[in-house]
């Protein structure tokens, strides 16, 4: 292969990893939430709230750091609402998650009205001088934006947490058998709330990446179903962090290929190409769910079930 082709491939991979960031962050957050036994279908709503909060805060303060912080707080506030309802008022998790998404779509559109049409300076890529200039791998390994590295690091930390840390074991115990964990004396609801809040913060960040880095602007409903794709990725990953990241890269790749094919002027209507990520999600779900034993063995046993300490 010629150097040019390799270089183009490297650039394609860079674009793929960028497109994967929001999917990966949201999927990792939801993975932690689900490991504790809680199914939060509000990912899309939390992402949108995070996106609008990040954009508003960055435009108002001029600081992207504040924007990212605001996104995490906004995502956590939404998650807190969900956690309070499902864990303390014992509401149905599916219905409450749907409500969170509907509410998030409305709230973000409401808050974002005044910010439509504005732009922010997108997050700069890391520059390590000579290292980032190395042909082929320079851009790919040393020249991405900080959030790409954060995503990688987060994947590693979550893997370590569930595989090696004692606290991770407790979260898993709560997700597998909340009554047993409660009997031993673990505060099941608090632990679950923590996992829900972590999920909210991650989804907020995922949304912030869209409005600050990926498209640098606020558009109503800009997540375009990514929250739901992230939910599917958790199943695809059979609740394993590295597989979630891999799945996100796969979907990032589909998005990028679809954009490039449109750019190359292939004679296919743009709508057909835009369908690809959604159709791919369905295909992936079918392939992974076919083996129901594998899902049953990997899914947290108490997922989606209401837990009340007094029985």
């Amino acid at each position: 292969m010629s150097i040019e082709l390799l270089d183009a491939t490297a650039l394609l991979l860079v674009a793929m990893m960028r497109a994967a960031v929001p999917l990966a962050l949201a999927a990792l957050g939801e993975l932690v939430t689900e490991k504790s036994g809680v199914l939060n279908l509000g990912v899309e709503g939390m992402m949108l709230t995070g996106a609008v909060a990040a954009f508003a805060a960055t435009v108002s303060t001029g600081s992207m750091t504040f924007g990212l912080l605001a996104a995490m707080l906004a995502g956590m506030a939404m998650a807190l609402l969900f956690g309070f309802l499902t864990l303390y008022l014992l509401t149905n998790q599916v219905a409450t998650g749907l409500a969170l998404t509907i509410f998030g779509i409305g709230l973000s559109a409401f808050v974002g009205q005044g910010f439509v049409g504005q732009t922010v300076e997108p997050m700069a890529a890391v520059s390590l001088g000579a290292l980032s200039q190395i042909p082929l791998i320079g851009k790919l390994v040393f020249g991405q934006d900080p959030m790409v590295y954060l995503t990688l690091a987060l994947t590693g930390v979550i893997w370590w947490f569930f595989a090696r840390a004692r606290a991770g074991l407790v979260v898993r115990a709560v997700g597998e058998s909340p009554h047993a964990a409660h009997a031993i004396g673990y505060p099941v609801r608090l632990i679950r709330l923590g996992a829900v809040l972590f999920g909210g913060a991650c989804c907020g960040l995922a949304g912030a990446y869209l409005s600050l880095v990926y498209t640098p602007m606020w558009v109503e409903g800009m997540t375009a179903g990514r929250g739901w794709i992230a939910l599917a990725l958790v199943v695809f990953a059979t609740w394993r962090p590295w597989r979630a990241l891999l799945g996100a890269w796969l979907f990032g790749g589909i998005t990028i290929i679809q954009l490039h094919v449109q750019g190359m002027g292939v004679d296919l209507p743009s709508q057909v190409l835009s369908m690809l990520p959604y159709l791919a999600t369905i295909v992936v779900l079918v392939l992974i769910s076919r083996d129901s034993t594998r899902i049953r063995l990997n899914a947290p046993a108490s997922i989606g079930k209401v837990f009340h300490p007094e029985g």
Partner: protein
Amino acid sequence: MAHKPSFMPRLEPRGHASPSMVYLTPLLALVVTLLAGGLLFQVLGFNAPEALYTFFISPLTTAYGLGELVVKATPLALCAIGLALGFRGNVWNIGAEGQLTFGAIFGGGVALACYDMEGWWILPLMVVAGMVGGMLWGAIPAFLKTRFHASEILVSLMLTYVATLILSLLVHGPWRDPEGFNFPESRIFSDSALLPVLLAETRLHFGALFALAAVVGGWFIIARTFVGFQIKVMGLTPAAGGYAGFSQRKVVWLSFLVSGALAGLAGVSEVAGPIGQLQPTVSPGYGFTAIIVAFLGRLHPVGILLAALLMALSYLGGEAVQIGMGLPLAVTGVFQGMLLFFLLASDVLIRYRVRFGRPQQEAKA
């Protein structure tokens, strides 16, 4: 187990569900939503009573407004009655929006194919086509769920995006109005393909009768048929349903086919009613709002009818505060989301009592 002395409110399980709370909690949720909404308006710097009046009362002061209320409640009720059937059986179809879109595509396709024709048979054919379209789109998640165990929640939602893109493809391409100055819209349907208006000076159309028929039909299935009973049992205790020999597959298929058909009917009623042509978007999210309607109506057809009217009002109210007070239209979504939250939260009162102070007796282990 030792309990620390506490004045925190606690939840104590009731022996059985409180029947009065089943009907009281939607009202409670509505009152709390009004209070929270008023607070929101006040915080935004508006006069709360005036804003609430504009949102909830002013749309109902004209005959046209009342007609619009029914026009918007029609698709909501149609979708929600189908969804409620599934929700009762723990089947989560959240893609009614996509099934509605497919109903619009199929029904609208018939209307465009019969553009140069006249005849009483065109409308019934469109209605049947719309219902078949919705059913087909609903059959996909049902098939993938029963055959491959794929989550019906995610599949039905993904298909909503696909359906919207297919509609967009059609109105940008083959179905675009040849005399439409390149706007992505179909021809305006011929008179034979438009639902008759029931009340002069309003847009109240024949589709409202479909919704009423669906209320009666939905009630009949739930209350008077064995299938309705099976769905209910499978939803409450799948294990008991399994022992009784009820089939989960059947519940999934039935839920999706019925809700798909009703959503499709809503879709064709929209394009043959108030819209009168195919456009890239044929619904402001009726299929999603129907989820709220189903819960607010307690999954019961009559309750759904009332809830659909209330949610229709939230659309009209959003438009009213946009025109009258310059608030963004998205305030509708905020109200809808809040209402569902408060409803879910207050539902805890159905199965639990709120108690203050320390428990009277030791809790069960």
